[in-house]
């Protein structure tokens, strides 16, 4: 399963990258969301996979014994998810504003910033 | 004894879910799919949850199972209603073998107001949208 998930991570990154390279602003943002999922999965994998043993101290115990899932990557992912959400929502709104101002969703039409005049 | 009850509850529940899955795949139009799935799945999930509650036999889990079932009973029909209504509205077509469509022409397309009058064959611009390909409704 580890290998499968490693490949999944690769696929997520690849898909994200492919989407980011499209010309549509919407695809770009979706691509970033997909990439974000890829990163999360990567962090998750880096903590090692443990089945069915969440890092929660059992009811009558004061600490966990035996194998349990590494809580640190989980905490990191939680933080990362939330942060990405903030950024993504801003980006989504930016699409809206961009469309209002520029009347297009085509990134290639937004090439005026670097003109030398 | 409880095990048998649990297993049968879960098995039947799972079958209902499978039924819903087959149903959504097989049914010829959207409304039929909704009709089939919402309930079968809800029933199936309910049974599985009941089985689970029995399996754990703890109050806290039972209460949570009940809570989930309640939530599902509350939300599932609303979701079904909303998507069904919206789909009808944007012109998702009925199965060609459907017997009747009492709703036809009742929507005011500008205001979305739905009239309750039982008059048929009045001015309707529903005609156009109905025939529009389902693809166009996606964009």
């Amino acid at each position, binding site marked *: 399963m580890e290998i499968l998930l490693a490949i999944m991570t690769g696929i997520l990154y690849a898909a994200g990258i492919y989407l980011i390279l499209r010309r549509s602003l919407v695809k770009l943002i979706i691509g970033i969301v997909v990439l974000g999922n890829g990163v999360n999965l990567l962090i998750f994998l880096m903590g090692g996979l443990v089945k069915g043993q969440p890092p929660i101290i059992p009811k009558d115990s004061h600490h966990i014994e035996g194998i349990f899932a590494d809580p640190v990557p989980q905490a990191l992912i939680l933080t990362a998810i939330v942060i990405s959400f903030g950024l993504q929502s801003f980006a989504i709104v930016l699409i809206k504003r961009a469309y209002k101002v520029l009347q297009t969703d085509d990134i290639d039409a937004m090439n005026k910033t670097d003109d030398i005049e | 004894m409880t095990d048998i009850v649990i297993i049968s509850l879960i098995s039947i529940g799972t079958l209902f879910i499978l039924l819903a899955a087959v149903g959504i795949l097989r049914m010829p139009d959207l409304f039929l799919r909704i009709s089939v799935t919402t309930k079968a799945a809800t029933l199936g999930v309910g049974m599985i949850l009941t089985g689970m509650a029995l399996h754990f036999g703890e109050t806290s889990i039972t209460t949570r199972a009940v809570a989930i079932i309640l939530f599902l009973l*509350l939300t599932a029909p*609303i979701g079904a*209603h909303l998507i069904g209504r919206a789909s009808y509205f944007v012109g998702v077509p009925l199965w060609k073998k459907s017997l009747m469509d009492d709703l036809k022409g009742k929507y005011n397309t500008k205001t979305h107001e739905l009239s309750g009058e039982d008059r048929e064959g009045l001015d309707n611009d529903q005609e156009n949208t109905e025939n529009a390909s389902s693809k166009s409704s996606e964009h």
Partner: protein
Amino acid sequence: MKSIILTTASRTLLPLLILFSVFVLLRGHYLPGGGFIGGLIASIAFILHAFANGLKKSRFLLRIHPGFLIPTGLLLALGSAIVPIIFEGLPMMTGVWYPETLPVIGKVGSALFFDTGVYFVVIGVCLTIIFTISEQA
């Protein structure tokens, strides 16, 4: 969306979801959950209400501008982080706990206030975003 069914149901769902969100908030320290998810659920409750009843009514229901919840939550979280500095001279964010275990809630300490701050911030943020977008939409 004008749907009597949704509107009516949302009135039941709203308190239910908010209740649930508090539940998730309070138990976070022991079981899955916490301020963040709690806040999300609470905001989803209001969003649902907004879908069903329109923004105006949701705003009216909220009494205050959701944007106001953001600094409030931040201040709460910040406050719980600063408390150890001010009162005990300990490093920031050191957990300060009330020694007794309270019923239902369990241990009460700065972490809980911190999580509550998170809860408010998340509600404020989600509602600000969604309401602003819906208004423009």
